[in-house]
């Protein structure tokens, strides 16, 4: 048959009188063997071609290995379910171990703990079914991205690195970290404010601030926390002025007459209950003036140095508190996204003293520097008041703490979240960082600062937390 076809291809015709001779020719041993050999070679050629195509298909097909991260245990199965990869009979990797990884041929897994970051090409050696066992394997280069360990990428550059006193004054410098622990009337306050990793990473300033004061003369205390907007050039100064202004305001304006009247109203309210309007009136009158004073102080400063007030954008929360025979009166004001939480004595109740200005988009909030907040119909709702026998903690915090620990506004209303938060403060956390709430604990401010170094992916803003207990 093969020889007949061969003859046809070469246009060799076998006439009838040579037919017998042709039959004999076809059956000559040499020819039979030759045809057999040719057929075998044909087969090999065809198989080889098919093999080449299969190998080429594998080389051309993108094999995606999911990205790895340094120090994070990695285990990914290679996706060999695609038809092209079904043909693979053998796989080995050449240089995986230098990245801290190895290939598990039984389970077709790449696994290990990556030890260096970068955009690498790894050599995958493979054979397909039908390939000679002794042949050299084929090589396919595969991209492997290993991300750096995010913790290792953060730098800590001091904001006053190699800067002198004049520079600091000119740039409204403030320390990257401050902390304090003081008696505050009949309670104590521990507070810490530290620069977020995002600022430390680029040697930028701390934008948060706080201030507090106890007025011996009348028994009132004030605690303020402010968060300067990351996008405003002089926000660090805005938050500082805001806090200082509120303390100054109450220092000057909590006058005897005014207060005596309020004390009477409170006592009356405590004894008789009922109409709370005179209280609201006092709260609104006094706190709104303090807030406006803070706004005006910033406005004045901005005008003085010829900067628009928006360069000083800062949120502001503050609480006034005083112990009476019948309990504590707590008055609050807030603009922005920093919460004030009051936990009762036996941690069975949480009162969120303010609502938060949370925008549709991250970071979109309102500031004490925005004149429109004072004329908004929502302005009167920015004030809080409560009368309580006693409390365990009154906390004021910036979003650097709240974003990481409470995540969303709704969680601030939930007692469970606050209990978890208190447990966390007391050492129930990954780093075993604990704050011991004991008034004789001289280390308490350091402990709070150390606790505030907690790691939370994506939450690297400045952190300020004031706890009255």
């Amino acid at each position, binding site marked *: 048959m093969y020889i007949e076809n061969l003859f046809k291809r070469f246009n060799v015709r076998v006439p009838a009188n040579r037919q017998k001779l042709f039959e004999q020719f076809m059956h000559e041993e040499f020819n039979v063997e030759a045809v057999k050999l040719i057929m075998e070679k044909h087969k090999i050629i065809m198989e080889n071609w098919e093999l080449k195509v299969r190998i080429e298909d594998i080389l051309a097909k993108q094999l995606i290995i999911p990205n790895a991260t340094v120090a994070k245990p990695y285990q990914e199965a290679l996706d060999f379910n695609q038809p092209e990869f079904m043909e693979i009979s053998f796989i080995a990797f050449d240089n995986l171990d230098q990245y801290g990884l190895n290939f598990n041929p039984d389970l077709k897994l790449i696994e290990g703990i990556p030890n260096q970051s970068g955009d690498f090409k790894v050599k995958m050696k493979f054979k397909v079914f039908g390939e000679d066992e002794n042949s050299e394997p084929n090589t396919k280069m595969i991209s492997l991205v290993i991300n750096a360990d995010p913790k290792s*990428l953060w730098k800590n550059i001091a904001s006053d690195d190699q800067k002198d006193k004049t520079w600091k004054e000119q740039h409204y410098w403030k320390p990257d970290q401050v902390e304090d622990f003081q008696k505050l009337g009949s309670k104590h306050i521990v507070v810490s404010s530290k620069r977020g990793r995002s600022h430390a990473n680029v040697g930028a300033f701390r934008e948060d601030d706080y201030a507090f004061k106890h007025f011996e003369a009348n028994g009132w205390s004030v605690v303020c926390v402010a968060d300067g907007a990351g*996008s405003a050039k002089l926000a660090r100064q805005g938050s500082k002025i805001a806090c200082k202004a509120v303390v100054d305001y109450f220092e000057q304006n909590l006058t005897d007459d005014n207060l005596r009247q309020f004390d009477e109203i409170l006592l009356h309210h405590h004894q008789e209950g009922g109409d709370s309007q005179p209280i609201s009136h006092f709260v609104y009158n006094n706190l709104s003036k303090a807030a406006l004073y803070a706004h005006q102080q910033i406005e004045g400063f901005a005008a003085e140095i010829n900067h628009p007030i928006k360069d000083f954008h800062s949120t502001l929360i503050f609480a006034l508190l005083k112990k009476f025979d019948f309990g504590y009166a707590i008055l609050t004001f807030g603009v922005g996204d920093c919460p004030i939480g009051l936990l009762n004595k036996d941690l069975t109740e949480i009162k969120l003293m303010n609502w938060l200005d949370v925008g549709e988009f991250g970071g979109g909030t309102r500031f004490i520097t*925005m004149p429109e907040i004072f004329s908004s119909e929502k302005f009167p709702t920015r004030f809080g008041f409560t009368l309580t026998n006693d409390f365990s903690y009154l906390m004021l915090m910036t979003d650097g703490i709240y974003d990481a620990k409470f995540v969303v506004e709704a969680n601030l209303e939930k007692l469970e979240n606050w209990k978890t938060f208190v447990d966390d403060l007391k050492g129930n956390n990954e780093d075993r960082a604990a704050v011991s709430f004991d008034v004789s604990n001289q280390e308490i401010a350091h402990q709070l600062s150390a606790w505030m170094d907690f790691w939370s992916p994506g939450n690297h803003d400045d952190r300020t937390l004031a706890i009255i207990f």
Partner: protein
Amino acid sequence: MRRLPVYFLIDTSGSMYGEPIQALNNALSGMVNTLRADAQALDSLWISMITFDREVKEIVPLTELPSFQLPEITCPQSGPTHTGHALEMLYEKVKLDIIRGSSTQKGDWKPLMFLFTDGKPSDLQLYREMLPKIKSLNFGAIVCCAAGHLANDSLLKELTPDVVHLDTADSATLKQFFKWVSETIEQGNKSQGTGESVTLPPPPSEITLII
């Protein structure tokens, strides 16, 4: 955790064929590597890429940077530039992708958009129809980059005040441009007041800001 979503719209029309698309691939790869080494970006950045020529393709859906893999961008040898159609796809994607803040979920940072083109929209009517819709999405920044002498700056100006022009789309210039893009992205996650947008860092000398 707050995400910073960044959308890249990349012109892959015929005029990009050859060296320009090669240069673009290199520059994008450089940019992604730069961002990968940035602590903040690694934590919060999400990237999406849409290419447009005759066809519009979402070549990478919105993906967090640690998992992001840059595909090789290719383009046909000839064909129109369907910028309007690309904006239409962007509009649909952004509406679906973006998480808005509420009392029970953390909102994204305002998304950023970078459009790279070396020509002008072939589907001008659709392009103009999409302009107000795109603007309504409240991007933190929209930056258009016009490369080469055929790119039309003034049409891009209708989309955003932030238009930059590159005289050539060679490798060095593109690298500079995307380095600047990564700096802009690094600015994108800072707290802003309601309604304010991202401030762009000063561009390098190879890039001309179109006033």
